[in-house]
């Protein structure tokens, strides 16, 4: 007989047992399938006198309780009533199983014997002396529980010691005694071994609540947790010692929700949902919040999370049916939240924001019904407060107009124009107006410029720039534009030879408004454009101006890396020397490191600037090349971050490289840098610079000699001697070598 057939037959047996009230059949079913028996008994009790079934009910409830299905046992017991002591006792025990002590106390309240036996374990009544004729093996355990509940741990230990030897293993007495050790205020060294034993016992492993409590107990006593302990123990110990709310939330999200008490389970699932939904698979994020909601999490917070998760679940660039459906669901979630937020002081702004989000998602989904509902909510808020702004009203109008775009473009255009008339700053209204004209097949060029002038929006600016460039015109640079937009414009001007250096006031003020790092990135971008157009002299001039202006180490690194990538190492050295007097000491290392792709340029920059470094800084720079840092094109990556989303320096260098530009291959930059880092600056050069610094000599005096092999060999020899022991002969030799270099070394009185 197949499994399916067996299941059907059992269902039929249960149904027959329930309808006939056959006690033997119900009892047999209870032995086999307590949960099915419970359901059958509930049906039976609804139609037949309950009394005849009490023994079966208490037996089935007991079985369910022992299987851990205390909630099902309580449902059955609620129908049967508390007519017998067994039923009352089972109800009290099942209630204790789900942590509902109030129900446990209520169940035994009128029963003197149960009050005496079970009451103390749920904080009710006093524990009497143990009976000399007691036969229940678990009675000491029950009494021990009562002792711990009343705060007398030592008495609990005595009770447990009274368990018969034959029953000790079955009743996990050793484990309970270990837990009682930890319940002592000062368990001393025994805590460590108790934690280790409990972490390995089957009684704790796999029981999320026990694992968490053991972790917290271990943290309380500062006891080490064995490496083999379950994850829950480790996490709970961390949770117990976590100090910040964020840290606690992150740990709580990793814990099994069943570890938390019932009242906190919803909050635990909510914390987990918020932390996990961004990484959840498509569609799974909202379900995390549904689970939290079902477990009793804060309703508004769970609905809010669900709406956010649904909003993030679709791709706003995709127009597929699924994405539109998900956008509609997101809109519905925001509408639900808006409704649940209700009305009242302070809530209106939130309701309006929720309505706005709903309208936005419904607009994407071309879901006119929900757009209209969102608008109705917004209008209701507007009627009782002054929160509705022209901006917002125009956005909502545009969402509504957008739903007509495909079927009635003329109507969409009219609504868009009305929205623009209401608020000329509204980007969304202009978007719709342009989209309607495109659908209607009408020209949009003039309107794009108008949209940019009205809104100042970057996207419109980029479109207007493209139009102007097609027509050979350029847009003015204005302060407050994004760095990428400024870089794009500067680059275009550089490429077309329209960029004057020294910069005009217009360019200078646009660069100044960007800040040091972004201005350097924009200049680097313009350099690449100029170089690509074959205008190396303009690239060099931009570089000189940028090096003179930058005061940030990121800016210096960006410029140095870009220059050597464009094979403008010599120009970089010239620019550095021209501004050497004003370049701050903290820029030396970024310039030297940034120029490593061109090792010679790097060395020359070092020698040009090392006179302003102390021996410690020079030494530090010596260590940097040999460090194990992962090599990367740091400056260019920083520039990309600063210029996104408008332009990318890496992308431009790639494009230039593909068009056979004259710069070094950016793909090779990392290996080259790595080589340069491995080699580092020659140690002898650094020793020479150190010697010059110590001797008070201007290292720049020797630069001409350093460019020749003979000069370098002299430097190497000087370095070797000054690194060695200080003797009169060595000093004489150094003096002679310096004389050959064209300088007289003073006597080495200073520290080397």
């Amino acid at each position, binding site marked *: 007989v197949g499994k399916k057939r067996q299941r059907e037959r059992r269902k039929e047996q249960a149904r027959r047992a329930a309808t006939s009230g056959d006690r033997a059949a119900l009892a047999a079913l209870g032995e086999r399938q307590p949960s099915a028996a419970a359901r059958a008994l509930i049906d039976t009790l609804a139609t037949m006198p309950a009394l005849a079934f*009490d023994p079966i009910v208490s037996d089935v409830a007991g079985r369910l309780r022992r299987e851990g299905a205390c909630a099902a046992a309580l449902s059955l017991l609620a129908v049967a009533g508390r007519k017998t002591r067994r039923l009352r006792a089972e109800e009290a025990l099942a209630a204790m199983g789900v942590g509902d002590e109030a129900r446990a106390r209520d169940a035994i309240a009128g029963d003197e014997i149960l009050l005496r036996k079970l009451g103390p374990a749920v904080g009710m009544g006093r524990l009497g002396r143990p009976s000399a004729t007691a036969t229940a093996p678990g009675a000491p355990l029950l009494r021990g529980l009562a002792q711990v509940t009343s705060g007398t741990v030592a008495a609990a230990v005595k009770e447990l010691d009274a368990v018969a030897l034959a029953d000790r293993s079955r009743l996990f007495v050793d484990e309970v005694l270990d837990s009682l050790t930890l319940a002592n205020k000062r368990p001393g060294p025994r805590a460590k071994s108790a934690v280790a034993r409990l972490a390995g016992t089957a009684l704790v492993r796999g029981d999320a609540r026990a694992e968490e409590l053991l972790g917290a107990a271990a943290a309380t006593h500062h006891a080490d947790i064995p490496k083999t302990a379950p994850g829950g123990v480790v996490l709970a110990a961390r949770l117990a010692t976590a100090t910040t709310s964020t840290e606690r939330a992150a740990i709580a999200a990793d814990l099994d929700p069943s570890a938390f008490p019932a009242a906190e389970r919803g909050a635990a699932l909510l914390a987990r949902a918020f932390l996990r939904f961004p990484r959840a698979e498509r569609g799974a994020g909202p379900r995390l919040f549904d689970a939290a909601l079902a477990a009793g999490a804060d309703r508004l917070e769970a609905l809010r999370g669900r709406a956010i998760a649904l909003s993030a679940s679709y791709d706003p660039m995709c127009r597929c049916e699924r994405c539109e459906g998900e956008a509609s669901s997101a809109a519905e979630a925001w509408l639900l939240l808006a409704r649940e937020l209700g009305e009242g002081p302070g809530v209106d702004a939130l309701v*309006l924001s929720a309505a706005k989000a709903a309208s936005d998602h419904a607009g994407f989904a071309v879901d006119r019904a929900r757009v209209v509902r969102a608008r109705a909510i917004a209008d209701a808020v507007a009627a009782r407060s002054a929160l509705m702004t022209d901006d917002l009203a125009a956005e909502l109008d545009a969402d509504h107009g957008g739903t007509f775009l495909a079927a009635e473009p003329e109507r969409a255009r009219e609504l868009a124009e009305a929205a623009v008339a209401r608020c000329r700053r509204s980007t969304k209204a202009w978007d719709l107006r342009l989209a309607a004209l495109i659908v209607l097949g009408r020209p949009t060029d003039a309107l794009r410029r108008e949209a940019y002038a009205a809104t100042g929006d970057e996207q419109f600016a980029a479109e207007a720039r493209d139009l102007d460039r097609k027509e050979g015109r350029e847009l003015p640079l204005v302060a407050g534009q994004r760095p990428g937009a400024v870089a794009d414009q500067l680059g275009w001007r550089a490429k077309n030879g329209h960029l004057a250096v020294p910069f005009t006031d217009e360019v200078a003020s646009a660069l100044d408004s960007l800040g040091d790092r972004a201005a350097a990135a924009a200049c680097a971008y313009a350099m690449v454009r100029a170089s690509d157009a074959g205008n190396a002299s303009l690239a060099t001039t931009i570089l000189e101006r940028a090096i003179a202006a930058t005061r940030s180490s990121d800016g210096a690194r960006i410029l140095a890396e870009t220059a050597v990538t464009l094979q403008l190492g010599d120009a970089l050295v010239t620019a550095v020397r021209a501004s050497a007097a004003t370049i701050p000491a903290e820029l030396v290392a970024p310039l030297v490191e940034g120029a490593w792709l061109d090792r010679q340029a790097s060395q020359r920059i070092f020698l040009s600037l090392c006179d302003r470094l102390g021996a410690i800084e020079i030494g530090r720079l010596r260590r940097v090349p040999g460090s194990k840092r992962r090599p990367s094109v740091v400056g260019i990556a920083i520039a990309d971050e600063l210029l996104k989303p408008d332009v990318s320096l890496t992308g431009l260098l790639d494009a230039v490289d593909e068009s056979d530009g004259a710069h070094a291959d950016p793909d090779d930059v990392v290996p080259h840098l790595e080589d340069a880092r491995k080699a580092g600056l020659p140690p002898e050069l650094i020793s020479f610079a150190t010697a010059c610094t110590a001797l008070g000599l201007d290292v720049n005096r020797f630069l001409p000699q350093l460019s020749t092999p003979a000069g370098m060999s002299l430097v190497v020899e000087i370095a070797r001697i000054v690194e060695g022991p200080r003797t009169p002969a060595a000093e004489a030799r150094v003096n002679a070598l310096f004389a050959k270099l064209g300088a007289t070394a003073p006597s080495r009185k200073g520290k080397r």
Partner: protein
Amino acid sequence: MSAAIRAFQQRLADARATLGVAESDDAAAIRRAYRRAVAAHPPDRDAEGFRAVRAAYERLESQLKEAEDVLLAETSHLEPPSLGPAPKHAPTALATHLMRKILQRLPLEDIIDENDLRETTPESRDE
């Protein structure tokens, strides 16, 4: 209601009280109230009062933006859940949890003596 929403409501209520405006007052009325409040708390004589007035005005001006920030925050506004008993009670809680767990696995007769479970109620006699 979420604690963040309550806090948001409270911040707005405090700002309105500082400027003496109602929720239905529009931006112009708020600006007028702000000017009056600044005249009452000039920065050169009552710097602290001026700061409070300025903060209240800015809060009311940007309440929609703040509302959006509250609604769209991708982190929970609630305190993380607690494991129940404070850590200092965890050791006792562990012992009681384990003992209850063991008791739940036992048949009734292993917990309470058979004699104690017998009773002589009219219902049981019928049975």
